[in-house]
């Protein structure tokens, strides 16, 4: 086993080999998902709890689908109807569910560091399904899988990540991984959404949308969180769309076979126009499809690691 840890918390700590191992493992599950009987028994008799302390639809459904296709008992939990609202702590809530002989927790939480905090205090495995603005490793893995699928390679590709980098766990996980894989990453967004200390990302910070898009092989648009408007980070959606949105004209600056990605859910007409989101270049729905395969690979690898 290239990857032998109990948990998957983030990609910053992973080696190139470990990242590629997840991608390679996902291929067999993609093939399975495309077969008539989309089911394997690899996690038969195992319990996976999707512990979502923050709202999510696609990530939760993706993980639930992945667990069920591996024959695990997948249980969904959301904090709005839980004892957390009665004042119970995060660790106590998880430990109670662990006592029900849970094998793997898929944890989504609004606080950065929550996944490692939980993982360090329980015996069950933890998959980070997004913690605050820290990391969202399975999203980055599915992004990489999709890029590799379309481009045939990862090394040397020019990738532009555009939008709210400051608050994006998807951007962070992608940047950490892409640097290790030899990809050339550029970031761009309103200055209010680019960290002041972005040199830690070891990638180019662009000044204009045109500079960001030109010569790109991959363009990843980040979702703008509409509630951020209240923080005076952007003056209006209209202006954001005008200066930081992706449209057909701007795509012409990218390489001819560039692909367009988005972690979803997309705000049509804001960060991405419909004529781009629905174009031939868009691989947004491929990302969603590959997400299930990646998550099956992650659950399977962690389950194997649990067997020791």
């Amino acid at each position, binding site marked *: 086993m290239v990857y032998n840890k109990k948990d998957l918390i983030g990609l910053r700590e992973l080696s190139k080999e470990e990242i590629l191992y997840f991608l390679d493992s996902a291929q067999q599950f993609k093939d399975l998902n495309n077969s008539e009987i989309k089911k394997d028994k690899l996690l038969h008799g195992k319990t996976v709890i999707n512990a979502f302390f923050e709202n999510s639809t696609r990530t939760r459904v993706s993980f639930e689908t992945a667990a069920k296709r591996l024959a695990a008992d997948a249980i969904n939990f959301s904090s709005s109807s839980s004892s957390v609202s009665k004042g119970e702590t*995060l660790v106590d809530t998880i430990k109670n569910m662990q006592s029900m002989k849970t094998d793997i927790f898929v944890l989504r*939480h609004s606080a950065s*560091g929550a996944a490692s*905090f939980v993982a360090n205090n329980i015996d069950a495995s933890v998959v980070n399904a997004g*913690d605050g*603005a820290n990391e969202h490793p399975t999203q980055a893995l599915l992004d990489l899988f999709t890029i590799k699928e379309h481009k045939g390679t990862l090394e040397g590709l020019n990738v532009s990540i555009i939008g709210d980098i400051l608050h994006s*766990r998807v951007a962070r996980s992608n940047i950490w991984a892409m640097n290790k894989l030899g990809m050339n990453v550029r970031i761009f967004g309103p200055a209010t959404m680019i960290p*002041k*200390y*972005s040199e830690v990302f070891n990638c180019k910070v662009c000044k204009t949308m045109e500079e960001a898009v030109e010569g790109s092989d991959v363009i990843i648009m980040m979702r703008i969180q509409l509630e951020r408007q209240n923080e005076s980070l952007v003056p209006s959606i209209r202006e954001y769309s005008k200066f930081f949105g992706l449209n057909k004209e701007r795509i012409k600056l990218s390489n001819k076979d560039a692909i367009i990605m988005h972690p979803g859910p997309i705000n049509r007409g804001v960060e991405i126009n419909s004529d781009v989101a629905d174009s031939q270049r868009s691989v947004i729905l491929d990302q969603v499809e590959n997400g299930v395969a990646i998550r099956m690979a992650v659950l399977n690898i962690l389950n194997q690691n649990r067997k020791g």
Partner: protein
Amino acid sequence: MRLLIKNGTIVNNDNTQKANVLIENDKIIDIINHEDVTVDETINAEGMLIVPGLIDMHVHFRDPGYEYKDDLESGSKAAVAGGVTTCLPMANTNPLNDNRSITEAMIAKSKNIGLIDLLPIGAISKGFKGESIVEMGDMIEAGAVAFSDDGLPVTDSSVMRSALEYASSFNSFVISHSEDCCLAHRGVMNEGEISTILGLKGMPSEKEEIMVARDMLLAKLTGGHIHIAHVSSEWSLKLIALAKKEGINVTCEVAPHHFSFTDKKLLTYDTNYKMSPPLRSQRDMEAMREGLKNGLVDVIATDHAPHHSDEKFVEFEKAPFGILGLQTLVPLTLKLVEDNVISLNKMVELTSYKPAKLLKLENKGKIDKGMLADIAILDPNLEYIYDDNLNKSKSKNSPLLYEKLKGAAVYTIKNGNVVYKFPECITK
């Protein structure tokens, strides 16, 4: 009752000498070079440093109101276990110390415990609302020594102006918790490379510096004495240096954690390193050390801020700010001496002599004939694990708990009585 401390090295702010200290009742009655005296008790301080009892100008004892974190008794025990004989507790108790009856109650309880001198800091504003100033005269009469809304800044500049002007009528001063709360609201750590890596909301150092600048200007306007609490950033010190150069009545303190650690400690999301102001960059930490060395910083104060383990055992964003400090003051400050940042004399100046001067405590801050017998005997070479047996606070929120430390108070003497002795099983 006569006590002789023999064979030790007396360290004052301005001199070091090998001599014996003769104490009678609560006073130092002589510094002698022989042992030919009749005494009731002798302490052999061979290889030890005899320093004036440490004065901590910034502690939180959580009493009244949050006694489960610490109370005046556990706080006092932690103080003397750290060589500290005088403490200034901040006003953010519950109820707040914003009137004389709370001040009186705190002092009475502390006197009953009898381990340290408690000199309460009153609130600046009634109810910490930042709207109208407290009855400072009445509170000083009751025993308060200075005023601060520590934990919160006074955002209304006219209220801060009044506080500075009014406190000066009573020859007292105002302690500024310098923070522009609107800048990086809900920040949980220093804004820098580490917060960018971790995806945690940062607090830029400008959040502190903006308010330091304002309070310097208000001190210029009023002539009042402003003391800047827990300075953490390089530019705060630059502003303070400018103000001092211009003759503005300003003093400041630095906490041991700010001259010992940087925000790199947060890479594991350890909530025991979460504090406000936060641990900052290497450059800021070095600026603190330089400020201590060159005399810009007046005082080392711990900002001892106990929190219950349950409160810290949560997601990083949810954990309260604060760290224990009283029992790590000596080892962290001695480390500065070991690193040749400051001398032992300077250490005494920062931890005892200068606080006594600021607080106008004429009989404290020196080992000398006629002074109060508040003394800490330090073993700079003692190595030990700071564990649950040694920790006297009710709380455990120190990142140094269970770590190996070097240097400790092995005896603490208050008013001529030994009020703390380091466990013999460890010293032997």
